[in-house]
Structures are given as structure tokens and as C-alpha cells.
């Protein structure tokens, strides 16, 4: 009756989200008086997970799992869950997890809850809280089937360090053939990935022209943050569509979000309202972004941002 945690890796490396999944699963196992078991696929160093409290790790190395297909990952997780005799599987929301979680729920005959933001509020019936209406509301949902898959929202639970020593069991999995074929993968390197970023600096039409993003990029650099933009800015082509955060763009949940020259239309707020701290800088003191923000400055970005860069540099020294 253990808890199985899928700790995803990218080219063999874990990310903060992998540790967040482990932290959630370990706490859930302790609440349910059972053991937490982590599953890793093609990870360079599975033992890294023992820093987050998991004492048993199943490690799968398989060339055919280097390319992702929902059906093969769903089949793998179902087989390992059955082998372990577990009924509860914990994963964290990423591109690949969101892709194969539904297939897993069908293959394993499991209840699937996505966007989960807290530990279960009750175990019988098994009830979790999740985001609905673009985080304008939360809902309690009961997972009615015996098998359960929980997909935790990014940066909603946090990472908890807890050093233990773990046993690693190599498992040689037979993998069902992928029903899609990967032809080409393009991943931008060097830049901080917006979905993983702990801090995000975002700007809107208030910046007036694309060349004015130099100061936004500089602020992002001193903060070690990713850059983002509002929808109008990506629609005009000042910034790439990959940077658009909002309802139809990326939905992000960083620890710190700067909205600079962004009025804060409801569609924008829907994509950023899971951020822990929101800072707004806008010339219009009635801009709706101030309703969503924790800290605000009414002022001109061209005046405020350079000062902000200087003060943050001072702080870091």
C-alpha cells in the first residue's frame, strides 16, 4: 500500500519540480502510515532524491524511453504501480506528465485529479483541493476509485529537504511500443525556462517599444529571473509567443513576479495569479494589476526600473 512518486528527469537531471513531487509524496506516505517509493527513468543519479526523504527508489534505464510517448509512459507506470501493489501515485504537473496522466488513469483504472494544491484534506473518502476557474476558485474533489493519480500544481507544495539513506533497485522494464514517433526536439539552452523560473520579470505595452526591453532583460539578469510579456506585446511581435503569460499563454507560478507596464487584464491575471509575490509597476494608479499585486509602485517604468536594478545590485554585494 506504498505511495509511488514519479520523479521526472530531463536529460538525466532532476529539477526542482522533481523534488517537489517527492516532498509531497513523502509527506502523504507519512500521513497514511506507509512507505514512499520513488520511480526514476534514465536518471543520472537516482540517489539525489534521498535528500528529500524517500528511502526506496526504483530506477529504470531504457533507451526506448528516451523519446516520450504518452502510451509507453502510461504503460510503464501502470506496471510498476501494480508490481509495488500501490494504489496512490503522485506526480508533478509538467509537459510530459500532463500528457500521459490521462492515459495512465485509463490504463490503470484510476481516478485522476490535476491541479492539486494541498495534501488530502481527508483520506476516507480521499479528498484533495484543486484549482478551478483559472485559480479564481478552489474545489474539493473526491477520488472515488481505488487507484488514484494525483498531479500536483507546480510550486504549490514546496520542496522539503530531509536527508535519509535510500536503497536503489534497478528495474528492467519491458516497454510497449510508442504510438507516436519523435522526429526532432528543439530546446532553447542558456536561457532560464519560464516554467521553471523562481523569479519572472514581465513587461507590457507600457514599455512603448521592443528596444526598451534592454532594461527588462537587465533586471531579469540581476535577479536570475526569466523574462515574460503580456498578450498584446506578443501579438504585436515585440516579444516571442513563448514569453506570453496569461490565460491563452503560459500559466506560471513563480515565487516572485514583476509586472511592469502591464495593466492587468483579467486574462493576464489568470495566468500569473498563482505567483507567491506579485510586484506591479504602472503609471496608472487605477490599473487592475494593483488589485492582484502584493507590492506596487505608481510610476514610470523608465524611471523606476533602472533604480530597481541599481538597488538590487547593491543588495547582492
Amino acid at each position, binding site marked *: 500500500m506504498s505511495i509511488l512518486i514519479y520523479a521526472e528527469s530531463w536529460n538525466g537531471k532532476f529539477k526542482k519540480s522533481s523534488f517537489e513531487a517527492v516532498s509531497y509524496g513523502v509527506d502523504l506516505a507519512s500521513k497514511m502510515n506507509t512507505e514512499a517509493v520513488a520511480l526514476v527513468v534514465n536518471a543520472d543519479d537516482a540517489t539525489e532524491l534521498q535528500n528529500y526523504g524517500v528511502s526506496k527508489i526504483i530506477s529504470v534505464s531504457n533507451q526506448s524511453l528516451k523519446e516520450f510517448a*504518452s*502510451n509507453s509512459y*502510461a504503460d510503464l507506470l501502470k506496471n510498476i504501480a501494480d508490481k509495488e501493489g500501490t494504489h496512490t501515485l503522485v506526480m508533478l504537473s509538467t*509537459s*510530459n506528465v*500532463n*500528457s*500521459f*496522466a*490521462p*492515459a495512465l*488513469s485509463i490504463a490503470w483504472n484510476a*481516478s485522476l*485529479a*490535476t491541479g492539486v494544491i494541498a495534501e488530502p484534506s481527508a483520506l476516507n473518502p480521499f479528498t484533495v483541493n484543486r484549482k*478551478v*476557474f*483559472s485559480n479564481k*476558485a*478552489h*474545489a474539493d474533489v*473526491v*477520488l*472515488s*476509485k481505488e487507484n488514484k493519480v494525483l498531479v500536483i500544481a507546480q510550486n504549490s507544495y514546496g520542496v522539503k529537504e530531509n536527508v535519509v539513506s535510500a536503497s536503489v533497485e534497478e528495474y528492467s522494464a519491458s516497454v510497449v511500443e510508442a*504510438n*507516436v*514517433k519523435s*522526429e*526532432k*526536439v*528543439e*530546446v532553447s539552452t542558456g536561457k532560464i*525556462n519560464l*516554467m*521553471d523560473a523562481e*523569479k519572472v520579470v514581465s513587461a507590457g505595452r507600457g514599455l512603448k517599444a521592443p528596444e526598451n526591453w534592454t532594461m527588462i532583460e537587465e533586471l531579469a539578469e540581476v*535577479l536570475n529571473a526569466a523574462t515574460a510579456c503580456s498578450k498584446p506585446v506578443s*501579438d504585436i511581435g515585440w516579444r516571442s*509567443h513563448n514569453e506570453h503569460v496569461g*490565460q*491563452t*499563454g503560459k500559466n506560471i507560478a513563480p*515565487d*516572485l513576479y514583476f509586472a511592469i507596464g502591464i495593466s492587468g487584464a483579467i486574462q493576464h491575471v*489568470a495566468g500569473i495569479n498563482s505567483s507567491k*509575490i506579485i510586484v*506591479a509597476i504602472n503609471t496608472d494608479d487605477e490599473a487592475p494589476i494593483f*488589485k492582484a499585486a*502584493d*507590492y*506596487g*509602485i505608481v*510610476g*514610470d517604468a523608465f*524611471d*523606476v526600473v533602472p*533604480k530597481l536594478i541599481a538597488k*538590487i545590485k547593491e*543588495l547582492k554585494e
Partner: protein
Amino acid sequence: MKILVCIGHVPDTTSKIKFTNNDTEFDATGIQYVINPHDEFTLAKAMQLKEKQSAKLVVVNVGLVSTEPTLRKALAIGADSAIRVNLDPKDSLTVASEIAKVALDGGFDLIMAGKESIDYNGGMVPGLLASINNMPFVNAVVGLDIDGAKATVIREIDGGKETLSANLPLVIAGQKGLVTEEELRIPNMRGIMMARKKPLSVVEPSATETMLEFTKFEKPEAKAECKMVSADNVEELVDLLHNEAKAL
């Protein structure tokens, strides 16, 4: 080629969200409903495929009669016909099971849905229905090309893109990027007139299985008032972010 596009009937983004019946149900009073924003991108892409490859385009929704205006809007945009499965669905599995049956019965080659609905945000229906029908599935799709019985699909991945190939029948979950914002379709007067005469068939539900039960809704606690700092005192903001918010 036969394309099935799933149309979500959701509260307009600007709606004030309220609950009723002791916070166990969404309160639809006074709510304006629209096509789910992500579905607008898949519908526009399906229209391009229809025009280029003379595909037949059917739209589907699982809902009561109140969702028909939303389906009519999709017909006005250019779909050939619509199917409504007559059920007020309780969870994603119910919706997916019903659409999976419509997809099989109609012999569709391509089933397209938005990556998630902006009401319940589950993001599950497209993947569930693909698995129920044992069809390949690609999520978060930003590019799609069909050549005969083969599809080339581009999906968004963490930090980049991946190009895949798959055979039809195929299920994709689309999002912005599948077409550009300018390529979205707005119904014109002629489309609206024609939509009135296009077939909208109602089929009775057959699925019985559910996996989730929504028991209670709540609004998150209201945020504390935004702390305002003077533009002449940026240092104070840095200090607050460092010492109070512990975010720097």
C-alpha cells in the same frame, strides 16, 4: 477526412465566479457563456484543414440544451454539423467517454480539443478519450500538418518544442500557436444565418462511469491590500521584498 472538434461551453473569462447550493455547485445566474478560448484555436485550425483538404468538420459538446447557442456559434464559424450529447456531465471521464463514442461511431480521422477548459481546468478530456479509443495522442499542440493518413505534429515541451509523426486516427489537444491570434475566426452575418439551417443532432448519453466528485467550492482568501511604495523610494521596495516577503 472527417474532423471532430470538441467545443467547451464555458463562462466568459470576465465572469464573476459564484457558487450556490451550499457551495456545492457553480452559480450560472447571469453568466455569459462562450466557446472555450483554447477551443477557438483548434476550431480555426480545423477550418483551415477543411478549406485546404475539403474535410468534413463536425463539432461536439456534452451538455444540456443550454449549450446549443455555443454550438451554433461554432457552426456560424464554419463547421458543417454539430452533435450535442444530452447530459449535464459530472466529471472529465464522463465527457471523454461520451466524445470517444461519438468519435468511434462517426469514424472520425482527427479529433481535436483545446488543451484545457477555463472552468474546471482539468486538462484531461483529450488524453482520456484518446486512451478510451486506443488512439495516439499529442498534448499542447502548436503545429499540425496532415498528409493522407499521416500527421506531423509540433507540441510544446518544457523549454522548447518537439516535432512528432503519427498515423490517423489521432487525437490532439491544441492551444495558442496552432494558429495565430489573427487567424482566429469570428462568425460573420452570413455564417450566422447559415448556422440556423445546419444540422444539430442530439444523442442520448451512454456513459455511466465517473472518477471524481466535486464536493465543495470556495473562493481563495482575498489578497491583502497591495502595499504601495513611492516611486521616489525604490529602496523601500527592495527592502520589503528582501526582509518582509523574503523574495530576494
